[in-house]
């Protein structure tokens, strides 16, 4: 057992999977340049020393190298592609949504695309184009699986599950949760480090996790918002007992875990970093109302960002990003 940051746990997970399976390789920008960054957030730092032929630095060419990763995956390789910022996924949308997600169906079930695609999200003082939460654009693309780890244990376990899965898996990671060090360290981070076992393990795709038990209201969140929601649940005490679920799997949703919680609480708040309109929370809310109408004793509510591009000025960015105070207010309101 050791205590690791998400960046360290991901790095170790990638290395272990590369040791285990010679078909696993990494492809991306600035991921293995000696003296460089190890990817934008140090996840692949120094891996090129151990795997000189399997850490592929690419030109700045997201459409090209993500498409190439899909092509290699189709032939049985297991690429782990990453973009420096998830905002860049727009550039590769065709390769992800039209090729990776659809090749299996279009081939009548004969093709497998065991692609892993890692992408950092979150507003972090970089203005509008290095800040978006891109999860929303992919949850409605059949053929993709999507996870979003909020701690180091999950990050490693989900990464390993993703590498071993035969379908394309997107892993959204949060810049403020990595725990990156040195020149690539972020300011204003949240500690997402955790104990990580020495032995091999996976966290199954498709599962949510109850992080805090409670009986009055269910708070659904992932990535950074999970941490803010846990803090908010503490602030709402005493008097209000909030259950906090780490949604963790955004495609598919773990309706069993979510439903079991709603059975208990009857109230749901969905917390999302990103514009409210058309967000992941919209799909969660609709799905809850379709599946559990008789369990709800109050309308589902959402805490999300304003419908604006991500602003730069720290004061505006902090207003954009939901925080524990706003979540606490929502908890008080729904239980009032």
């Amino acid at each position: 057992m050791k205590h690791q940051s998400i960046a360290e746990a991901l790095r170790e997970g990638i290395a272990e999977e590369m040791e285990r399976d010679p078909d696993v390789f990494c492809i991306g920008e600035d991921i293995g340049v000696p003296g460089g960054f190890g990817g934008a957030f140090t996840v692949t730092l120094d891996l090129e020393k151990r795997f000189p032929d399997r850490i592929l630095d690419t030109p700045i060419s997201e459409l090209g190298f993500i498409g190439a990763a899909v092509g290699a995956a189709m032939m049985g390789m297991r690429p782990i592609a990453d973009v420096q910022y998830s905002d860049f996924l727009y550039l590769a949308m065709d390769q992800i949504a039209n090729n990776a997600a659809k090749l299996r169906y279009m081939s009548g079930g004969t093709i497998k695309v065991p692609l892993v695609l890692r992408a950092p999200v979150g507003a972090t003082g970089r203005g509008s184009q290095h800040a978006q939460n891109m999860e929303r654009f992919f949850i409605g693309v059949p053929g993709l699986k999507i996870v979003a780890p909020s701690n180091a244990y999950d990050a490693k376990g989900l990464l390993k599950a993703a590498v071993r899965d035969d379908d394309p898996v997107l892993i959204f990671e949060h810049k403020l949760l990595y725990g990156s060090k040195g020149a690539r360290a972020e300011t204003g981070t949240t500690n997402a480090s955790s104990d990580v076992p020495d032995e091999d393990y996976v966290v199954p795709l498709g599962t949510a996790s109850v992080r805090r038990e409670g009986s009055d209201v269910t708070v659904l969140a992932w990535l950074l918002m999970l941490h803010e929601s846990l803090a908010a649940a503490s602030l709402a005490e005493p008097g209000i007992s909030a259950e906090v679920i780490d949604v963790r799997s955004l495609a598919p949703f773990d309706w069993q875990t979510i439903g079991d919680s709603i059975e208990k609480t009857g109230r749901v708040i969905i917390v999302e970093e990103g514009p409210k309109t058309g967000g992941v929370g919209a799909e969660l809310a609709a799905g809850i109302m379709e599946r559990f109408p008789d369990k709800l004793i109050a309308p589902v509510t959402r805490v999300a960002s304003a419908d604006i591009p991500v602003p730069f000025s720290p004061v505006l960015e902090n207003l954009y990003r939901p925080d524990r105070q706003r979540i606490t207010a929502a908890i008080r309101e729904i239980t009032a």
Partner: protein
Amino acid sequence: MEIELTNSIEVSQTYSRSFLLGLYERMVTCRQFEDRVKLLFLEGTMPGTIHQSQGQEASAVGVCAALNQDDFITSTHRPHAHAIAKGLTPEEIMLELFGKSAGCSKGKGGSMHIGDMSKGMVPAIAIVGGGIPLAAGMALSFKMRKRSQVVACFFGEGATNEGAFHEAVNLAAIWSLPVIFVCENNLYGASTAYSKTTRVPRLSQRADAYGIRGETVDGNNVVKVYEATLQAAEECRHGEGPVLLELLTYRRVGHSRRDPAHYQDKDEQAFWFARDPIALLANSLLNSGDVNEADLRDIDARVAQTIEDAVTVARAAPLPTEADLTTDVYAMELT
């Protein structure tokens, strides 16, 4: 870089009679398949839309004849001839066009996504340029696994103005990947003429921008296409890829469905229609003296029967059912 477009094909002693007749038969299969499909479509019995390749048979057949069985091709929204040339049967394609569950993609792909991985053809990618990065990645897998396979990546001249072309060719170039980028230049992207979209006279010139070899070939001369592909494949197998081949050819039909192609210049049409790739080979074979008219008519009749049998089978085959709707989305279902 002037390309000589002659109306005779050198069918020297280099090639056996059976090899040349094999090329002829495959081209005729492509042509008859497309002509039959056009009728089926016009009579209203075939669903969907179609993009046909009459006139471009030499590029499909010439390229694929130079590939090994375990080499791969990627294709486009106009994939029928590529599929036949790579060894898919008219029957499995016809079944797919009718949306039948015994089709090459169980009726889930359709005309624009014809393919069969077991025969070395990725389901056609119908987004213009979208298959080019896939081809680079497939070739990357061959290189990483130290295999001698190559990928022939078909696309039209229109795709060379897509960003996907630029990014994927560049990647293949810096990593010396075994890809033959096969640009079928039929002079029109849908209805828009090549000259309106592209300033370089020869697309093979674009190879220079990536530091790779480019070559323009008469795409209606099946032997020339075969030889150019064979050489390109050899280079790729020896780590000297990728190669960009521009094959000059012409669509004898519209872009899709009922398009009468009124945008094609009449003189240009006359020039290219006189250079029909099948007629060019047939005439050269007849002139060589090794083949007579009856030999060719026998092949034509045999192919016609194969196509008709495929239609009969495809018409009678069962359709998918509701149980098929949601299968084949994931390889590993999560509940």
